[in-house]
């Protein structure tokens, strides 16, 4: 237990914030996808840290991490496929220019 729990949480929060800011600010769809990955991994870090800290009571947090890996992989696959077909439709990956779904 060299590194205290608070340090992990702090890094996780910083990563999550950077990811959120990336999603909100960037306009390139691929970068937005990468930012989402960052948010997911921030969550993973927090989960692993808590799981390790409270291993004597409950270690199931680390199992969630595996699920999030799977979801993230699926999300990348689907997300990239959407970006690709959107690109074929209109040669851009700028999300501000893709707004045909306006109600």
């Amino acid at each position: 237990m060299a590194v205290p729990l608070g340090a992990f949480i702090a890094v996780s929060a910083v990563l999550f914030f950077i990811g959120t800011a990336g999603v909100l600010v960037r306009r390139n769809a691929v970068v937005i996808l990468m930012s989402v990955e960052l948010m997911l991994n921030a969550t993973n870090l927090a989960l692993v840290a808590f799981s390790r800290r409270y291993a004597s009571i409950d270690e199931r947090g680390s199992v969630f991490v595996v699920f999030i890996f799977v979801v993230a992989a699926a999300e990348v696959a689907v997300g990239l496929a959407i970006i690709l077909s959107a690109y074929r439709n209109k040669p851009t990956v700028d999300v501000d220019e893709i707004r045909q779904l306006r109600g």
Partner: protein
Amino acid sequence: MIQNVWLIPAFPLAAFLIDGLLGRRWLHKWTGVIASFAVGLSAVVAIGVFLEVLGGQEHTTVTLYQWIGVGDFHINVAAFVDPLSSVMLLVVTVVSFLIFVYSNGYMEHDHGFHRFFTWLSLFVFAMLILVMADNYLLMFVGWEGVGLCSYLLIGFWFERPEPYVAAKKAFVMNRIGDWGYTIGMITTFLVFGSMQFTDVFEHVTIATQANLTLICLAFFFGATGKSAQLPLYSWLPDAMEGPTPVSALIHAATMVTGGVYLVARSMPLFEAAGPSLAVVGTVGAVTAIFAATIALVQFDIKRVMAYSTVSQLGYMFLALGVGAPVAAIFHLATHAFFKALLFLGSGSVIHGLGGEQDMRKMGGLRRKMPVTFWTMLIAGLALAALPPLAGFWSKDAILASAFVNGHLVLWAVGIVTAVLTAFYVTRALWMTFYGEPRDHHLYDHAHESPAVMTLPLIALGVGTAVLGVVVGFPPEQGFIDTFLHPVFAGEGAGHVPEIATLVTLAAVSVAAGIVGILVGYSMYVRHRPDPAAVSRAAGPLYRLLVNKYFIDELYDRRIVEAFRAAFGAMWAFDVHVIDGLANRLGWLAARSGGALRGAQTGVVGNYALTIVGGLLVILAAYGSYAVGIFPR
């Protein structure tokens, strides 16, 4: 043979399937041969079954399979073979066979030939199910089946408006009667827990008087629909729009006797149910005289026969009502022969005249159509109840029973009706066959029908001539009485009246018939008094009869209009309230969707911002709970 009783309906069913599936494309005229052959085979099996029942089988149940089984409640597809049903099987199959043969000639030039035999075969199948059933539910299957076929065959020439209107009328009026049958059937089930005839009749005593009366009156209401009694009779005269063999088979010989059979079959219930038999007898007598008066003034030869059928069915119900079911079934059988013959003879005349049905345009036809004339004469005299023809024995049995059992009013009505009957049959036969031809063009082209039509006429004529003596002599102790007695055993018909009484009563009814014939002869042959003068003198009464007591108009005005108004109100309710509710809900959804559509900007960044904003709100709420700003 009894174990093979299911062959009887199987043959017409097979003919129905073969003719229906292959008739239009391949079989054409062979459909008639196939159907006639099938019904002929049924008749052979029916004769075998009848002989075996005659040989001492009192009653047998032949189960085909179990149809419904719920707990203790069972409905089997089973045939109940006893003297009553075997007589019915015999009459239905034999008369059907003759009419099928006749139809091969009558329908020869019709482009719906195969369709005709398809429906007619289905009809015979349904009628046999009705007769054979061993429970009320299976009987109802046949009951509805014959109603359906009646509808299809009345509307056979649906290109013209009158037939399909008549078909609709027949179907609706039968449905009104079926409502009564259904009520009776359900009440029977609730009271007895069974619908099987034998079960129900064995346990008659467990039912209260009120329940029994309800059951019987409901069943009788069903019978008035099917057997064209007051108040549901008015579909039968209109049913004459169908082809004449249909009128002969369905609307004279078989289907319309279904109601009589139902009441005769349920006799143990009616016997136990106090006033219901009196209702049956009264309705029968009133219908008999009512329809006979209308028949006096009709000019369409088939309409005369139709009203005559209603009237004769009234006689049968009269017989049931005075506690003489044997006489009723006897009259049913003889009536099947002579009325089928009268209809087929009328059909032969119509065929020979190229479709003319108005008796005012006929006359003198006996020289052109000798076979038709002689057979119809036999049938007409049988209808007028002159000895030794069939109608005499059965009608006399009915009137004698009414008198002996103390129903003097019903007996008197029956005698008056007998006079009227003899009168209108004389009038019809005279106008058709005697006198000078009134329409020379028609007369010159008139021709006798082919052998395929006249042979059935002759066969029915022989039946009409001898059937009464063979089975009905001596009265009250003839073959039919001893044969059917076990079915109705234990019902007051125990004592046999004295011979002198019977002879006197027979003499009175014969005298009634002769009076009717003489009056008819005097009016239509000697013109003393002249019929036209009589109708002018009778004035309003004559108009009342010609317009059939305005019953159709009354029903239209009072009932059809009321229903139309009620259903118009329901339609309005449907359009404005039910549909209106659905439309308003849809409108609400559309408007609220329109209001919210602005939120969908199509920009991904906005959606992401909304998600993060929502996250912050949730976190803020959770945090304020955690630190205690909001109480939990």
